[in-house]
């Protein structure tokens, strides 16, 4: 990817739009496909390496209009099937093309409560944009209609123009619902249940609500102010927020139902248990889980060295293990915290990387050094017990495994060393066992995820669950989708008792 300054993108878009507008005939499919795919304006890589501000700046109105005009309004709309919550994609895009942003937002909000978030963080290239006809015809998913960017565009337009409306709340029913965890799953359930007039209390272990959206995903990808707006809307609707409240410790699930008279509970506690590799040297000083590194930086604001009390390593040479969004976020955070060299080590190839393509591109632009088909064997210690480097093995791809991906196989005798002072392990998260351990009768599977039926109901009466605690580490949109399903079932259940 080569970096194109945003001024240039805006100018180009203006010109093309004039040409398009000058046409007297309605646009045919050919004309639409001839419109250049609109790149996302972004901060200059050289500048953004040393700030935490958002990298992607958002489309200009001209770019949004042009990108919307690229949509063919396919009758079968294959894109919709690619969206986990089934947004009416051609519908909202047509509204943008027609200049009716308000209508576009309304369409989005029928199915997604967090369009400003999902537009930014959904893995669109494997979801809605994967089956897009335009991308298919132009033989590249990169050329598909940028559905996510358009979604972000209108959601930002609504927020920035102070047009966000607080959803109406029906008369109080006197019923009370507790929501455990304030990630996208919990926030969604809160909104949908409160709308029906039930009272809602949200419990959050941390001092701030938002889940991974605030402690994990960095500011440069998802500004915290956007998440805060969503939370403000919930409090304006009358939802009560109890931060610093750990269910299973401060209060147990059973106490909430029996003593605190909650009529139903939703568990959305996420997948917050960092996995380690169990290799030699993992407990040396200088080895972080990505969760710890990102929490220190994002939630505790360690990047703001002048003001934050929470320390974080001032690293020179960092290695991040993993190839997902979490690994990209950790690597790019390390760059911003001033590391001179950041190595990303992944044992498969770029094609298999689970991270969003855009983040991989941004990481490269920012100078992260990619080591593909390599994997650490052990972490090396200096005489004080601090990280001094890692020993790696080279890999090649072998036969496909159960997941259909070709299995990486270590090449014998290929060991080599990299000098480092910091290691960040970002190979995934399991579910936190706290609720499971303190809630007898709550059924979980062998990975510790809560077992829930198609309505999100757990094995216990009046207790529902959704998001990463059910799916294992997944995505924001899936957590939100599960939340909506569970909320609908909970509202039905509450209307019957």
């Amino acid at each position: 990817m080569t970096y194109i300054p945003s001024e240039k993108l805006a100018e180009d878009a203006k010109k093309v739009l004039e040409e398009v507008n000058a046409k007297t005939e309605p646009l045919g499919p050919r004309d639409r496909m001839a419109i250049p795919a609109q790149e996302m304006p972004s901060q200059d890589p050289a500048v953004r390496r040393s700030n935490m501000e958002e990298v992607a700046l958002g489309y200009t109105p001209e770019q949004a209009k042009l990108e919307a005009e690229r949509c063919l309004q396919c009758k079968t709309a294959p894109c919709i099937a690619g969206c986990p919550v089934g947004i009416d994609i051609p519908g909202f895009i047509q509204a943008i093309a027609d200049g009716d942003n308000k209508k576009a937002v309304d369409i989005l909000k029928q199915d997604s409560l967090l369009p400003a978030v999902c537009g930014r963080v959904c893995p669109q290239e494997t979801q809605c944009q994967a089956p897009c006809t335009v991308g298919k015809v132009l033989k590249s998913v990169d050329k598909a209609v940028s559905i996510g960017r358009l979604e972000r565009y209108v959601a930002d337009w609504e927020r920035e123009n102070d047009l966000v409306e607080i959803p109406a709340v029906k008369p109080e029913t006197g019923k009370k619902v507790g929501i455990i965890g304030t990630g996208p799953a919990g926030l969604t359930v809160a909104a949908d249940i409160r709308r029906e007039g039930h009272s809602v209390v949200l419990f959050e272990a941390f001092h701030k609500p938002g889940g991974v959206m605030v402690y994990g995903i960095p500011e440069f990808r998802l500004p915290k102010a956007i998440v805060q707006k969503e939370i403000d809307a919930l409090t304006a609707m009358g939802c009560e927020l109890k931060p610093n409240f750990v269910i299973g410790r401060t209060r147990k699930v059973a106490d909430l139902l029996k003593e605190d008279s909650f009529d139903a509970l939703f568990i959305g506690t996420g997948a917050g248990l960092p996995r380690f590799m169990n290799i030699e040297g993992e407990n040396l000083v200088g080895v972080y889980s990505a969760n710890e590194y990102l929490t220190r930086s994002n939630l505790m604001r360690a990047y703001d060295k002048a003001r934050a009390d929470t320390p974080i390593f001032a690293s020179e040479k960092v290695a991040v293990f993993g190839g997902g969004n979490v690994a990209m976020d950790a690597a790019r955070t390390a760059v911003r915290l001033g590391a001179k060299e950041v190595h990303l080590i992944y044992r498969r190839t770029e094609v298999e990387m689970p991270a969003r393509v855009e983040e991989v591109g941004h990481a490269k632009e920012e100078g992260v050094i990619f080591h593909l088909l390599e994997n650490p064997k052990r972490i090396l210690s200096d005489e004080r017990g601090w990280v001094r480097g890692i020993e790696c093995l080279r890999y090649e791809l072998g036969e496909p495994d159960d997941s259909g991906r070709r299995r990486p196989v270590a090449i014998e005798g290929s060991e080599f060393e990299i000098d480092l002072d910091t290691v960040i392990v970002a190979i995934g998260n399991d579910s936190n066992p706290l609720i499971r351990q303190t809630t007898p009768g709550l059924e979980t599977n062998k990975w510790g995820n809560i077992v829930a039926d198609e309505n999100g109901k757990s094995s216990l009466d009046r207790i529902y669950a959704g998001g990463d605690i059910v799916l294992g580490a997944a995505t924001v949109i899936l957590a939100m989708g599960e939340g909506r399903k569970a909320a609908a079932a909970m509202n039905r259940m509450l209307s019957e008792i």
Partner: protein
Amino acid sequence: MNRILEKKQLSETVFSMRVEAPLIACERKAGQFIILQLCEDFGERIPLTVADADLAAGSITLIFQAVGKTTKKLARMEVGDKIAALVGPLGTPTHIENFGTVVCVGGGIGVAPLHPIAQAMKAAGNHVTIIMGARNKDLIILEDEMRAIADELILCTDDGSYGRKCLVTEPLKELCEQDPKPDLAVAIGPPIMMKFCAETTRPYEVPTQVSLNTIMVDGTGMCGGCRVTVGDETKFVCVDGPEFDGHLVDFDNMINRLNSYKKQEEHDCKIGLEGEAS
């Protein structure tokens, strides 16, 4: 927001605070701790043991030593001030049962977390011997409270200014040599003291529990910052502990990890407190 209801200075650097926290007062058990923060945006999260609780008043007691940025700021707060965030009770409670004879060893500020455990051990019917140690007389805390619990109390100071002039490991060794030897030892204090207590009891095969004070962030098992090596396994102190079998803990690694931020924090403390240029 949790209001400070009472504040006492126990020694030059050790303070006791009674803080409003009704739910925690009601749920907490011996061995558990809280995490607090003095500013929601920029404060760090630090763990402190619940040293005592008053159900009727809906309060908990924290006893802490002002050693760094946050504990020093906390020490400057007064009755009526509010702590921005306080969460708990965290950690797995101490396993309390009638073991027979239990020797509780507390070093320095470690006496504070030891107090509720000694109390619970006594209430469960154990014969409780308490060994308390500090560098000098002025640093001895909670003497009366511990005396009220102990069947036998042994005081020691490094400089001999009070009680016996020795390290806590000396009386501990003597107890292990007696017949019958103690059924259980509980040691809480600086990591180096816990390490040597565990070494002292090891040859006598007296089971020894230690309470680890690692660096923490969330306290709920989310970050792994608190991890320690116990036997061949990695454990998270905030959820699997804070108490572990002292004979299995890799203390050298733990002490190392505690020093991770030493340089940065020493620097911070200087700028924060003395206004020195960096």
